[in-house]
């Protein structure tokens, strides 16, 4: 194929693909600003004739969206903070500290990656019931306080830390905790940022387990609340689009501002979280 023809073909395909991919998200945003009922017309309107924030007002005033947003943010933040500490400690230890049974335990953990999370949901529910954690924030937070993927990600990165540096600190009499806090954590910073973003987003977007364990409506996270709201208000497109916007925009903005770290995590892991 000749160069100009190829250029035209490739760029046209990119533009069409790009528009098709972005369209649902752009339309979601546009419809969320339409007057109630405006989206129920043919042909479907692309832009709001009279833009309004009414849908957002109704969402927060009548449907407690603020509450669900708080729940989502709280759960995602606590999960991110705790699991970051636990995964970092474990990932570093599996990479750099020598202890008996280390490699056997680590390969056992890796083997667990083939087991889908859904296999454990039913016994986990019974266990949570036993611990009194059903329908509490703890029900979502506690099982997510550590993850094999997170440990794996930190370990891969920590393997490249120079042993001489750690050894030197040990000879100077620094405790293992001190070495971890003052030397290891600062050096691991890039991968910790990546892991924090991946964890926060996974927790924010999580649906099935919160749906099961958060049986009280006032504890619902945004995805759970949106799913039940959308079942009740099937025809209320404008309101639903506003609900989708407040659910999606926080993670989308986080991704766009931290894209480099996010992509690095995918390429380093090669495994879904």
């Amino acid at each position, binding site marked *: 194929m000749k160069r100009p023809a190829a250029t035209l073909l490739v760029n046209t395909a990119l533009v069409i693909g790009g528009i098709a991919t972005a369209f649902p998200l752009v339309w979601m945003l546009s419809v969320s600003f339409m007057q109630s009922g405006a989206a129920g017309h043919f042909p*479907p309107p692309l832009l709001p004739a009279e833009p309004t924030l009414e849908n957002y007002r109704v969402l927060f005033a009548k449907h407690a969206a603020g509450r669900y947003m708080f729940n989502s943010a709280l759960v995602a933040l606590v999960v991110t903070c705790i699991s970051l500490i636990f995964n970092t400690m474990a990932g570093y230890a599996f990479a750099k500290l020598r202890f008996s049974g280390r490699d056997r335990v680590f390969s056992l953990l890796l083997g667990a990656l083939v087991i889908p999370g859904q296999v454990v949901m039913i016994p986990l529910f019974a266990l949570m019931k036993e611990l009194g954690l059903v329908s509490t924030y703890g029900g979502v937070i506690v099982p997510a306080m550590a993850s094999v993927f997170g440990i794996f990600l930190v370990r891969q990165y920590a393997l490249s830390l120079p042993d001489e540096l750690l050894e030197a600190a040990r000879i100077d009499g620094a405790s293992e905790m001190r070495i971890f806090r003052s030397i290891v954590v600062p050096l691991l910073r890039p991968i910790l940022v990546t892991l924090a973003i991946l964890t926060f987003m996974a927790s924010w977007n999580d649906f099935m387990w919160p749906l099961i364990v958060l049986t009280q409506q006032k504890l619902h996270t945004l995805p759970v609340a949106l799913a039940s709201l959308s079942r009740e208000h099937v025809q209320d497109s404008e309101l639903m689009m506003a609900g989708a916007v407040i659910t*999606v925009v926080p993670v989308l903005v986080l991704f766009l501002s931290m894209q480099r770290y996010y992509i690095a995590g995918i*390429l380093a892991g090669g495994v879904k979280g």
Partner: protein
Amino acid sequence: MKARKAGWIFVAPALLVLGLFFFLPVLAAFLMSLTDFDLYALRDAANLRFVGLRNYGHLLTEPLFWKALGNTVYFVVLGVPLSIGASLGAALLVNSKVARFRNLFRTVFFAPVVTTLVAVAVVWRYIFHTRYGFLNYALGIFDIAPIDWMGDPHWAMPAIIVLAVWKNFGYNMIILLAALQSIPDDLYEAARIDGASNWQLFRHITLPGLAPVLTLVSILTMTGYFQLFAEPYVMTEGGPLQSTLSVLYFMYEEGFKWWSLGRASAVAFLLFVLMFVVTLVQLRVTRREGQL
């Protein structure tokens, strides 16, 4: 000596969490699937009875389970190749030397991956709306009669597949892009000097270069797609006529609607075994092809 103790102390919190809330439930899942665990047992374990393999026997004679399994396999068999195809197409386009604004398009193609599945399922349900949806409007431009996407048992699953492909192709695109960029340019140069066509370059350099990564992403995508749940939960509630009921949806209803937790555990376990076997088969097939 000191480091040895420190090692265990450092891994203890994470191992405790994983042991208690992952490994213990994995074992319990199998044991529970051998009992009649229900709402009464949830209240008091004394009501628990061992039933052997009866849950499994019951499932294998339950038409709805087979229906759910068939739907899930349909979703995987159609959805995975389409997803990988879209990922590969997007990766080739973005990687093309003549492409403009490559970073912008890469970001746009990836954006759906980070979105919340429930939220975009709500958006797509509206796009698929029979009367006011954008898709039927767009098809109308080409004189295609409106399709009742969410109401016709033949079209509900294809609609869900469209959503899944849109949502996921960007993920594998990123991995394939990295693999494409690791294929040395000299290979292409040498082949071009020998007079190879674009198709020959793709067939004999690009595809073999991507083969190991393609195997990896198809296994990961497949195991992900076997876990279909939120899309039908939000878009169709498993309908119409159970045409979008997936195995996990079936498990959810058995477990948390009818509270047959023992039977639901059996469903989860069967799904896991199925995914495991399909993964092994896929690995073996690609290994054999690699030897030829």
